[in-house]
């Protein structure tokens, strides 16, 4: 490997890769050290180390309520989008439909349309029906944004399934539903879990629909947004650090699960 004449450009390429990875990840992790400061202002380097801003976050009922509301909306959106998206995969990936291409376009179209456009539409729609400022409406709105991603993620792992197992189960006398649940579903499950985690974070991080629709209650992104526009207090650094660690754990676990499933189905 080392004796190729390509060496210098390979070396440059590795250096370039490291620089870009630092550019991508460094700004995120810099938030964590500054959250452990007792200074009232955001300042480098952080002095006066302490957990003041974590205490402020957990001690403020507004922050806690916003977090709980976001968790609630996120969980509902996650369950709804995962179920609806997976069911859509089961129809479009396994059955022959004349309008399959058209339906696939329709299902994935919310991804393509600018987010602000959908947000405004949902807002006008909710106002017209008088269902705005409602956590359930918000959860369904978020689920609509998230389920095309579920459809793509679960659809991708469905395409990796080996149909022979299910056929074998059918030959051995299982009905179509039982054959699916015993032979196909277990290998589909990691993809479904990954999609569920992803759709939870789509909802948990979503700002604009919530900002339009909710007037009485605040979700966590709304609260962060409101604080950021006023002043940059380090409470947000504490909240961000918690969210960064939570995202890494959640998404990392889902990713490992998905990878493992791919390895199992390949072996």
């Amino acid at each position: 490997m080392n004796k190729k004449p390509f060496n210098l450009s390979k070396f440059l390429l590795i250096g370039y890769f490291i620089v870009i990875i630092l550019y991508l990840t460094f700004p995120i992790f810099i938030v964590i050290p500054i959250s452990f400061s007792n200074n009232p202002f955001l300042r480098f380097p952080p002095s006066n180390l302490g957990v003041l801003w974590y205490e402020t976050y957990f001690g403020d009922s507004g922050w806690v309520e916003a977090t709980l509301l976001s968790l609630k909306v996120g969980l509902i959106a996650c369950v709804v989008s995962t179920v609806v998206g997976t069911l859509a995969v089961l129809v479009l990936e396994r059955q022959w439909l004349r309008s399959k291409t058209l339906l696939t376009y329709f299902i994935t179209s919310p991804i393509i349309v600018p987010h602000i456009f959908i947000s405004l539409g949902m807002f006008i729609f909710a106002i017209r029906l008088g269902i705005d400022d409602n956590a359930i409406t918000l959860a369904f709105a978020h689920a609509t944004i998230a389920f095309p991603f579920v459809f793509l993620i679960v659809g991708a792992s469905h395409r990796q399934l080996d149909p022979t197992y299910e056929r074998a189960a059918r030959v051995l006398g299982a009905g179509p539903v039982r054959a699916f649940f015993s032979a196909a579903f277990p290998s589909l499950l990691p993809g479904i879990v990954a999609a569920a985690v992803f759709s939870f974070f789509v909802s948990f991080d979503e700002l604009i629909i919530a900002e339009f629709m909710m007037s009485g209650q605040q979700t966590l992104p709304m609260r962060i947004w409101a604080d950021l526009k006023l002043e940059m207090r380090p409470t947000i650094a504490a909240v961000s650090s918690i969210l960064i660690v939570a995202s890494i754990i959640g998404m990392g676990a889902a990713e490992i699960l998905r990878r493992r499933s791919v390895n199992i189905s390949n072996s």
Partner: protein
Amino acid sequence: MSTKKKIRSTWLLWPALFMLVAFFLIPTLDILRASVYDPEFTTKHFTKLFSSNVYLDVLWRTIRLSCIVALICAVIAYPISYFIVQRPRKQQIFFLFLVFIPLWMSVLIRSYAWMVVLGREGLINAILIGLGFTDAPVKMLFTTGAVYVAMVQILLPIQIVTCYSAMTEIDLDLMRAARILGAKPWQAIRRVFLPLSLDGTVTGAIIVFMLSMGFFITPALVGGRKDIMMANLIEFQVNQLNWGFAAAISIVLLIGTVLCVIIIKRLSKILTGRLVGGGNA
């Protein structure tokens, strides 16, 4: 394949269709209606939009910024994807994992992180002052440059992943064949690899462009007063309760996005054609 015909249960698709109709199709129609009925039929919102330079300036700025962001992402991502795709399989997974880390964070927090890095008393200013390069903090936050730096960082992983997946489809033996037939490394890349991988790059750039067109949080947080984009304009109008006007702006944004995507696709086709033609000569 024979199992596929046995379950005919298209009703499983109904929840998806119901949700799309209720929360996507009808809201879209609501926007169309709100833009031209107020409460009677009127074109005043569109007239207002197109008669004032202020709004057209924002549209033009949004398109320009999105194009530049997409271009920067495409240029930065290409060598990165090339690098990853040439590594052994195990390393590829790890490197992609690194690229994915920022993708898991909310845009809100990533924009906030840039406020921390670029702010008056932020990281970069602390370093510059600490090393004695400057006495007073340099203004970096709330500038157009900050919007570019942050938006490219936020959208780059998407471009890398799209570009990478397209590159994995390319048979690397073709490059080897070109090398054996006497092509220099750069020739092999330019005449074989580049034309084959350009499609994925263009797809990625189009996705980045479309996402940029709707960007809202980042320009509002790290940009200056002059850096507002279409989405910020829409949000402002909604807060002013001008829903009809907000709807009209949204429609212009959507149509503008679609038109630009069509143009980008056309241009890229011409470009690819040139490259392939150059390879034959």
